[in-house]
C-alpha cells in the first residue's frame, strides 16, 4: 500500500498507457477487427524478431534524444517545442561535416559529427532563449517559429549547398565512410539499428546524473522550480534559461544521428519525420525523468514499428491506429493530476473504512 501511494504518479502513468491501449483495442473491436489479432500484430511487429526489435529500437533512438531535450527544458520550467527544427538543423550539420571532411577516420569523425549536431541544435535553442531573455518572447512562440527558420536553413543546405545532383530525392551528397555509424546487427538483425541507440542511452544516463548529482543540474531545476527563491539567492534566471534551452536544443540536435549518420548516410529533406514533436509526448509520458524517457521512447518506437504491420495483417485497421493510441495515452497522461487526486482520495477512504 505504501509503495503504491509513494509511486502513485508512475502507477497512474502506467495506467494511462494501458488505458490508451485498451481504448484502441476496443475501437478495433467496434470496427469489427479482433482485438487479440490487433494486439498480436502490434506486439509481433514490434518485438517478434531481431529485425523487428531492431526497427523498434531504431525508431526509438531519435525519440530518446528529443524526449531528453524536451525534458531538460521542462526541468527549468521551459517548454521547448522546437525540437523538430533543432533535430533537423543538427542532422544537416552532421551531414555537412560528413561531406566536407569525408576523409576522416571514424575515431575522429564520430565525435566531430556529434559535436556539430549538438552545436547546431544548441544554437537554435540559444536563439530562442536570447529572444526570451532579451526581448520577452515566450519560448513556446519562439521555438515554434524557430522551427520554420530551421526548416529554411536546412532546406538551403540540403537542396542547394550540398545537394546530390544525381538523385531525384531532395537529399545531400553522401557522407564520408568514416562518419557512418556501425550497425548493431547483433541485436537488430538486418534493421538499420546502429550505435546511435547506444549514444542515446549514454546521453540519458549522463543527463540523469547531471540533473541529480551536479550543481549544473540543481541550478537548472531550481531556476524552473522556484525562480523567485533562486533569484533572491543570487542565481541568474536569465543565464539558466539560456543554458537550459541551449542544452535542450543540443540534445535535440543529436536526434538526427541515427538517421543521418546511421542509416541514410546523408540528410534527406524531412528526415526528422516528426520525432521532435513526438518527443514532447515522450517527455510527458516519461515525466521528465531520463529513464522514464527511455521507456516511453521504446514504447512509442515499438508502436511505430508494430503498427506498420497493421496495414498488412488486418483488414479493417490501418496504421493510423498507432496515432490514436499515442493520442489516447497522451490525453490520459495529461489528465494524470486529476486522476491522481481522485485515486489518493479513494485510497484514503478505503483505508479509513478498513480500520
Amino acid at each position, binding site marked *: 500500500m505504501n509503495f503504491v501511494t509513494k509511486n502513485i504518479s508512475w502507477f497512474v502513468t502506467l495506467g494511462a498507457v494501458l488505458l490508451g491501449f485498451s481504448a484502441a483495442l476496443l475501437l478495433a473491436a*467496434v470496427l469489427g477487427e479482433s482485438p487479440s489479432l490487433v494486439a498480436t500484430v502490434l506486439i509481433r511487429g514490434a518485438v517478434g524478431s531481431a529485425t523487428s526489435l531492431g526497427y523498434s529500437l531504431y525508431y526509438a533512438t531519435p525519440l530518446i534524444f528529443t524526449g531528453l531535450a524536451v525534458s531538460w527544458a521542462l526541468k527549468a520550467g521551459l517548454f521547448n517545442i522546437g525540437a523538430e527544427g533543432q533535430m533537423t538543423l543538427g542532422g544537416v550539420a552532421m551531414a555537412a561535416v560528413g561531406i566536407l571532411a569525408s576523409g576522416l577516420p571514424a575515431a575522429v569523425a564520430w565525435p566531430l559529427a556529434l559535436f556539430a549536431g549538438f552545436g547546431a541544435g544548441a544554437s537554435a535553442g540559444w536563439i530562442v532563449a536570447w529572444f526570451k531573455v532579451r526581448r520577452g518572447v515566450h519560448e513556446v512562440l519562439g521555438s515554434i517559429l524557430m522551427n520554420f527558420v530551421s526548416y529554411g536553413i536546412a532546406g538551403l543546405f540540403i537542396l*542547394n549547398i550540398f545537394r546530390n545532383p544525381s538523385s531525384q530525392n*531532395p537529399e545531400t551528397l553522401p557522407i564520408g565512410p568514416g562518419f557512418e555509424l556501425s550497425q548493431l546487427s547483433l541485436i537488430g538483425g538486418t534493421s538499420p539499428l546502429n550505435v546511435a541507440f547506444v549514444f542515446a542511452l549514454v546521453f540519458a544516463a549522463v543527463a540523469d546524473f547531471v540533473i541529480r548529482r551536479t550543481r549544473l543540474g540543481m541550478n537548472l531545476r531550481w531556476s524552473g522550480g522556484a525562480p523567485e527563491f533562486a533569484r533572491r539567492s543570487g542565481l541568474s534566471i536569465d543565464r539558466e534559461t539560456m543554458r537550459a534551452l541551449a542544452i535542450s536544443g543540443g540534445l535535440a540536435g543529436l536526434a538526427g544521428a541515427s538517421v543521418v549518420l546511421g542509416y541514410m548516410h546523408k540528410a534527406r529533406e524531412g528526415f526528422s519525420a516528426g520525432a521532435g514533436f513526438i518527443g514532447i509526448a515522450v517527455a510527458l509520458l516519461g515525466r521528465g525523468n531520463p529513464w522514464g524517457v527511455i521507456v516511453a521512447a521504446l514504447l512509442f518506437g515499438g508502436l511505430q514499428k508494430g503498427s506498420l504491420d497493421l496495414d498488412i495483417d488486418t483488414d479493417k485497421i490501418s*496504421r*493510423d491506429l498507432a496515432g*490514436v493510441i499515442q493520442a489516447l495515452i497522451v*490525453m490520459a497522461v495529461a*489528465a494524470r493530476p486529476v486522476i491522481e487526486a481522485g485515486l489518493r482520495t479513494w485510497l484514503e477512504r478505503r483505508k479509513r473504512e478498513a480500520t
Partner: protein
Amino acid sequence: MRQNLFHSLRARCLGFAPNLVAPILVALMVVVTLVSCTKKEAGTPGSSSEKLAGPGITIGLVLDKGGKDDKSFNSAAVAGAERAAKEFGVVIKDVESPDDAAFEPAMRTFAERGMPLVIGIGFAQTDPMKKVAAQFPKTHFAVIDGVVEGPNVTSFMFEEHEGSYLVGYLAGLVTKTGKVGFVGGMEIAMIRRFLMAYEAGVIAANPKAKVFSNFVGITASAWANPSKGKELALSQIGQGADIIFHAAGASGMGVFDAVEEKKVFAIGVDSNQNGIKPGRVLTSMLKRVDNAVYEVIRSEVEGRFKPGPNSFGLKDKGVDMAVDANNEALVAPHMKKLDEVREQIISGKIVVPDFYKTQPTSGTK
C-alpha cells in the same frame, strides 16, 4: 428524501466535475476516431477474404508517401494492381509508407511473408529496395519510376519526354496568343525532363511561341501546394499564356482552378485528368503506371518475370495523350497531325531532347 438525494447528488457532481472531463473527452475521441480510423474503402478486392496464403499468389505493393488517394501516381498503381487482381485472381496487399524509413521494413515484411513479388512505387524506394532485394534473393522486386540493379529486380522507367513533346506540340497548335505555360512541382531532374521536351514540342509546332515555366518549390511539399500552383498559373495567364501544362502532383489542382477562372486551358499529367474541369482540360499526358504494375504482375503470374530495366514510351503506350469525351471536340482537328508526330517519334525521325542525357550524371542512379 428525494430532496436530500438530489442535493447530495448535485453537490457530488459539482465537487467532482473535473473527474468527468477526461472520460467525456475520451468518449468524444472514440467517436471521432471511429469515423477517421476505418480503412479506406479503396481496398483491394480479395484482400478481405484472404489472409497471407491463399489459392492465388499474394503480391505486396508499397506505395509512396502520397498514399493511394492521390488521384495520380499512387492511385494509378493501385488501379493497375486491382485490374491484375481481377484478371489473374491474385491477392494484393498494399501498405502506405508514413516516412522514408518505413519503406524498408514494409518491403522486408512482404518478403518475409513469402510473397513472390514486391512492387515499390516511386523513386524514393530505390535505396531501400537495393538493400532488401539483396537480402531476399528468392523474392522478385519491381520498382516503378526508378532504377535498381539486381538479379531479382526489375525497374520501370517512363519516357516522359516523349509524351511531353506530344502534348507540347498540341499546345503549340492550339494556342491563340502564342504563349503557353508550364507549372512544375518540385524542381528535380524528372520534372526538368518534362519541361525540356514540352518546350521542344511547342516550338516545333509554333516556332514563334513563348513558353513560361515555374516550379512550385524545391521541397517535397511542392507536390501538395495547390494555392501556390494556382498563383503561378494565374501569373502565367496574366502574361498571356492560354495553355498551361502542369507536372505538379496535387499542386496541379490549383492550375485547374486558375484555368477555369480565366477561361483558358490546362494539360493534365500522369492519370487522365480531362474530367476534372471538363472542357478546360486540353488533354492529359498519361504516364501509365497502372500498365506497368499490371504488366509486372502478369509476368509474375505467367512465370516469365525478367529482371533488368524496362522503359515505357509512346511505342508501348507507357506514355500517351488522353483523348476522351471531355476533350474530343478540342483536339479532333489536330489529331491527324499529332498521330503523324507520334509516328515520327516512335520511328526515331523526331529525336525528342532528353534532359537526363544533357546531364553529366543520369537522372537516376
